[in-house]
């Protein structure tokens, strides 16, 4: 029997669901190994009978909590799809601002109309079996992980830092190229193939931290490179603002 799968979206850009749709020809193979019963972004068919729920996006308003709990009740396995579900992603940037001011800034005098709460990852509300990290998720990882989960096998998600993959690609370390930079590679979970440093950008930490990050050594590197504490904090808070407090 093919497992029944549902895709659900909360506060996000829906780029991770679109990554699922953009796996191209291989999407058709994927579709043949599972039975997709709920995928609002792609289909008007809506089913509530599913075994595996892929959940994209952060919890950001009170109604999200009930909807998420309902999904948990129906599903045997819940999977966080992408950074917004996994770490609250960029949505959490606003958590560090005054919420009343944030609302007023965007919606002015009518800010009271919209009920919101601090952005949270989904495991702040429900039990989550697996995480597919990244902003957005990595296509190859997704194509490896979905069949594993569908056949009841724990998917492999790397737990070494991005630096390992960056070295394997033969990149010159950004810290060797320039002073006053912040690359999150030393403490960020690999699996992306060091995609950002490979095209001349710093790792922004979108895949979350490795399970045992060497923060102390990392801070020393930043200190050496003359990065101010404010800039460090700002950079941590791009994708990992909530990691320290969870």
């Amino acid at each position, binding site marked *: 029997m093919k497992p029944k799968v549902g895709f659900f979206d909360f506060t996000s850009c*829906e780029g991770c669901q679109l990554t699922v749709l953009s796996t191209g*020809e291989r999407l058709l193979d994927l579709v043949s190994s599972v039975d*997709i019963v709920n995928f609002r972004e792609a289909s008007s068919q809506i089913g509530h009978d599913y075994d595996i729920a892929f959940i994209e996006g952060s919890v950001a308003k009170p109604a999200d909590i009930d909807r998420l709990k309902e999904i948990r009740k129906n599903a045997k396995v819940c999977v966080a799809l992408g950074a917004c579900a996994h770490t609250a*992603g960029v949505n959490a940037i606003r958590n560090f601002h005054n919420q009343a*001011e944030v609302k007023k800034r*965007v*919606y002015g005098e009518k800010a009271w*109309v919209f009920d919101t709460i601090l952005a949270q990852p989904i495991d702040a509300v429900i039990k989550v079996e697996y995480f597919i990290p990244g902003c957005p998720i990595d296509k190859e990882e997704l194509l490896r992980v979905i069949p594993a989960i569908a056949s009841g096998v724990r998917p492999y998600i790397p737990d070494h830092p991005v630096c390992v993959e960056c070295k394997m690609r033969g990149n010159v370390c950004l810290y060797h190229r320039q002073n006053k*930079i912040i690359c999150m590679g030393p403490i960020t979970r690999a699996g992306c193939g060091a995609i*950002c440093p490979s095209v001349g950008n710093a790792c922004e930490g979108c895949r979350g931290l490795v399970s045992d990050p060497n923060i102390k050594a990392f801070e020393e590197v930043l200190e050496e490179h003359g990065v101010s504490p404010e800039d460090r904090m700002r950079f941590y808070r791009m994708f990992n603002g909530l990691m320290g407090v969870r």
Partner: protein
Amino acid sequence: MNGKDVEINVHHVTRVEGHGNIVVDVKNGELKELKLEIVESPRFFEAMLSGRRFPEAIHIASRICGICAVSHSHASVRALEDALGIKPSQQTETLRRILAAAEHLDSHALHAFMLAAPDFLNLPSVIPMASTNPDIVKTAIRLKKLAHDVCDTIAGRHTHPISIAVNGFTNLVTEEQLKSLLKKVKDAMNDVPRMLDFFSSLKFPDFERKTDYTSLTSRNEYALYEGIIRSSETGEYKHRDYRMKISERVVDHSTAKHALGPHRPYMVGALARLNNNFHQLTPGAREAAERLGLRVPVHNPFKITLAQVVEIVHCLEWMSTLIEDLLAAGIKDERAERPPIAGWSATLEKVSRCWGVGVTEAPRGLLIHEYRIGNNGLIESANCVIPTAQNLANIEADMRELVPQILDRPKEEIRLMLEMLVRAYDPCISCSTHLLEVKFVE
């Protein structure tokens, strides 16, 4: 029809990007209530951007939308360049144009083939189309794959692009890579006849409502990347004057703001661009329009989908010319003389207070980012005007005119028509904060 009561409530319209509801309430044949509720959680991007180092804005802004991440990056980088008084090189601008073309191609292929087409075939989604219309699904997949290849090669990734930076790219495409992309673009042109056969066979609802068509326009090209703003009703104006022409207001039933022009509701997107700039389309795209029976001005919003198909042809031909131009000039590594300013660059000290506006065309229409930067290089305030927010009032105006015309039809048919109308606009609710369900109030 006299005396009829119809209440429609589509809760979370499907096959659109984001969450929205359509609510229609007719009592005694009179339209009591009609609204497009936007129920997506507010995203607060404008607040998220404040307090960030200015070059970081590009990567944060791209996270507004998974479909049009390139357009948001472009609006963002152009706003920063406008503020800092930086004019990027011709090569940078050409590469960005190629990215813009690829994104329009990708987004239109997704919408026209995968989200809109199932309505015309009486199918719930593109998935069963894989058995009923396999060639069409494969065409869509090939076009999307091409667009992703282009973006992956030039910008490091499509969703979300990595190497787009102020004053250039942090990584440069090679001539070898461009040659390989050019071949793929030419190959994709073989798919055009099949695509046109399919879309010219679809029956579109007969409904017209003239509105204000607003888009960028440029003397030099069919504007998909830069230009000045043109309203079909009130004329042209510069990007920095947008606040004098476009006002945003908060309505109770939508977490996405409604934007209104001097002529009140207006339309942005593929059809607005086609109506404003038709003569600048590539020859193949003009032929495609002929084939699809589009004679501008087109006032039928359902045909936005066809305008997107025309733009797919345009983007293929335009991309091919742009790549040929680049290859003829040769790719120069300009990074030493014009250092790109990326998120982590430490150049904040040199920045003094400034303000800038960046406009571009996203697949769904005119996109505006505006930033105010402080002496310390940190963003003080940001404003983003999103295509779907501009279309919302116009969609409601269309529905208000359409509902009385179709009130004598069965409720399910009314519901489908309204869903199709909303879907035709290809709303992107994540962007505008996300959109769609139809509620017929019962």
